[in-house]
């Protein structure tokens, strides 16, 4: 049985993540796992700058570092358990009964890759624990989205249950697949669909029409619109104007290298969006 995994940390997004995962669980009726990763790499490193090594330095250093890790792990473990307890309480309150709590050592990404075979939908908060004022998305979010090949719901706080969603279409084969997948997932069932394309080229608008017909044939109520301007701004403006509760996109169509030079629409929307973002795979 494939699971929904919700990533729980101590961030301000935790409550919203719980609510969103409860909503997902009510939609697709799969077991919900609340996951807390105990990541050692985020802990501060102690340093002693004496630059001196003496008799048995290696053993001594190993002991010291191991002891420090042990002490920190114990605290982190306890803290994590408490977080998971609270999260489980929230989810149960929303009426979800099939809930499991899971703690794993290692970074969040490592844990998720280990669990990937069991994963159907991932729910993750937009911000991590290390809330700086200038941080716009969590430090692990992008790498998680890039590596995990399952549906991913990126949650923003506060969460409210969406009644409609927006699909960004660009005429590419990838986005045609996206339409198909959107029709098939029970997550989007019963929600109003807004099919939107930025830029208008003749050859693309044919594909756009086709996509709209496909959605309609699937029995969805579809609103179509073609926008102009930069992709991220146009999409977000449309979302605000129409009070749409969720954005649906395919994630990262291009390579890291290309993105490094040109920027990525996924990341831009991720940063600016105030509503949850569902990445469909």
């Amino acid at each position, binding site marked *: 049985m494939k699971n929904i995994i919700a990533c729980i940390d101590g961030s301000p997004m935790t409550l919203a993540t719980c609510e969103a995962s409860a909503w997902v669980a009510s939609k697709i009726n799969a077991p919900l796992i609340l996951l807390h990763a105990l990541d*050692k*790499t*985020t802990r*501060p*490193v*102690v*340093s*002693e*700058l*004496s*630059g*001196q*090594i*003496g*008799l*048995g*330095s*290696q*053993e001594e*250093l*190993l002991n010291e*570092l*191991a002891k420090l*890790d042990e002490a920190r792990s114990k605290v982190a473990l306890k803290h994590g358990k408490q977080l998971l307890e609270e999260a489980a309480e929230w989810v149960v309150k929303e009426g979800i009964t099939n809930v499991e709590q899971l703690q794993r050592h290692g970074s969040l*990404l490592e844990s998720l890759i280990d669990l990937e075979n069991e994963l159907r939908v991932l729910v993750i908060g937009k911000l991590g624990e290390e809330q700086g004022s200038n941080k716009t998305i969590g*430090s*692990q979010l*992008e*790498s998680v989205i*890039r*590596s995990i090949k399952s549906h991913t719901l990126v949650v923003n706080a506060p969460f409210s249950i969406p009644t409609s969603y927006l699909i960004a279409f660009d005429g590419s084969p990838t986005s045609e697949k996206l339409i198909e997948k959107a029709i098939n997932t029970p997550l989007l069932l019963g929600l109003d669909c807004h099919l939107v394309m930025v830029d208008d080229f003749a050859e693309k608008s044919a594909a756009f029409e086709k996509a709209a017909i496909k959605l309609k044939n699937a029995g969805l109520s579809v609103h179509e619109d073609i926008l102009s301007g930069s992709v991220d701004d146009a999409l977000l403006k449309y979302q605000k104007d129409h009070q749409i509760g969720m954005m649906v996109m395919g994630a990262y169509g291009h390579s*890291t290298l290309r993105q490094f030079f040109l920027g990525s629409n996924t990341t831009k929307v991720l940063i600016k969006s105030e509503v949850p973002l569902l990445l469909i795979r």
Partner: protein
Amino acid sequence: MFKNFKIDWMSNIRGDLLAGIVVALALIPEAIAFSIIAGVDPKIGLYASFSISVVIAFTGGRSGMISAATGAMALLMVTLVKEHGLEYLLAVTVLTGVLQILAGYLKLGSLMRFVSRSVVTGFVNALAILIFMAQLPELTNVTWHVYAMTAAGLGIIYLFPYLPVIGKLIPSPLVCIIVLTATSMSFNIDVRTVGDMGHLPDTLPIFLWPDVPLNLETLLIILPYSIGLAVVGLLESMMTATIVDDLTDTSSDKNRECKGQGLANIFTGFLGGMAGCAMIGQSMINIKSGGRGRLSTLSAGVFLLIIVVFLGPWLKQIPMAALVAVMIMVAIGTFSWSSITDLRKHPISTNIVMLATVIIVVMTHNLAIGVLVGVLLASLFFANKISRMMVIKNNSDENTSREYTVIGQVFFASSDKFIASFDFKEVLESVTIDLSAAHFWDVTSVSALDKVVVKFRREGTQVELIGMNQATQTIVDKFGVHDKPEEVEKLLAGH
């Protein structure tokens, strides 16, 4: 990749930069000392340390590990430099790098699993002894000033960290170097200084093709040295990587490290530096000082070059005694002192492997030979132990038949014992050999089985083999002759 980039470089900026400074200070004495051992200007070792640590910061497979010009490598270069000169050393360095990259692609890093714990301990101890012995020329035939300064230097290094607050903020080796330099300058003591040992860098390194004839003769000169250097460099790097893995409780990519070391050496050869590898002592200093990421390795190299190029005139004034004190500290810190107390606890075979490794290295000044001997000894001891795990039980049902049950591993080391366990003189009608708990590993063991079967047959005894497992069956079918009549004829005729 993106995630790794962030963790490797950005996760610990402050710790990495501070550790980088401390490590740079620990690298300078070693680079100078071992340039002198190899018989080249200190410049060569310093350029090498700069270029290796900068390149390995990007290419290495173990973040937080320090690589630079090392003693283990310098000791292998001595005769080459003496007989052929510096340009050949640079060519050797480039070829060493090429060989190491090759080793990386052939995934030879995984061969490290054949190097047992006791060989690693022996390697580390031998390395420490070599580093210490390399200091002895500076301590023989000198005035009492040198001894006094070295002793004072060691005193500063080990006692300064006990000072409150300041002791943990300023690296004590740095204090040692500054105090001793100031003392010798102000009292005008006549001792050997770094400036007496050869040229120091006064410019940034430049890219140059080694000035050697490109022909087969050159290749034949440089290849043996390159192989030795490549092996020693990879050995020390793999061992250091394991130590850093343990200390930081993280994992490393050993094959990437092989390729990284190779690239670093190729660059270094072209920049006019000598071949190097990872350093156990300096890597430990780095971890202790809070260095974890690739930034620590990079900053160590960059700080080293800044210090050397801009403080060159001051560097010349450093008395050799100060460097000797720092190097003695590195030797003491590298040596595995617990291995001495462990001698009483460990089995004798383990001790023999460890001590043999140390003794061979100290005698030959070649860590590769020591490790090879250590690995061979360890394998022999292991084969011997496994061969003792074979037993043959026999029980006679009646007077005319007997059943032998073979339990354990039958291979070259246990084959003789296997044959000797059967009583061929006994008069029997039939013999059953139960092999269900035995495993035949090689051709030697199969021919032993043949011998046993044929010998019984010669005495007129009927032999039945039962319970062979799949693997044994396969190898016996392939190499065994006892059920191939024409081969048995040959076997009988031949003996």
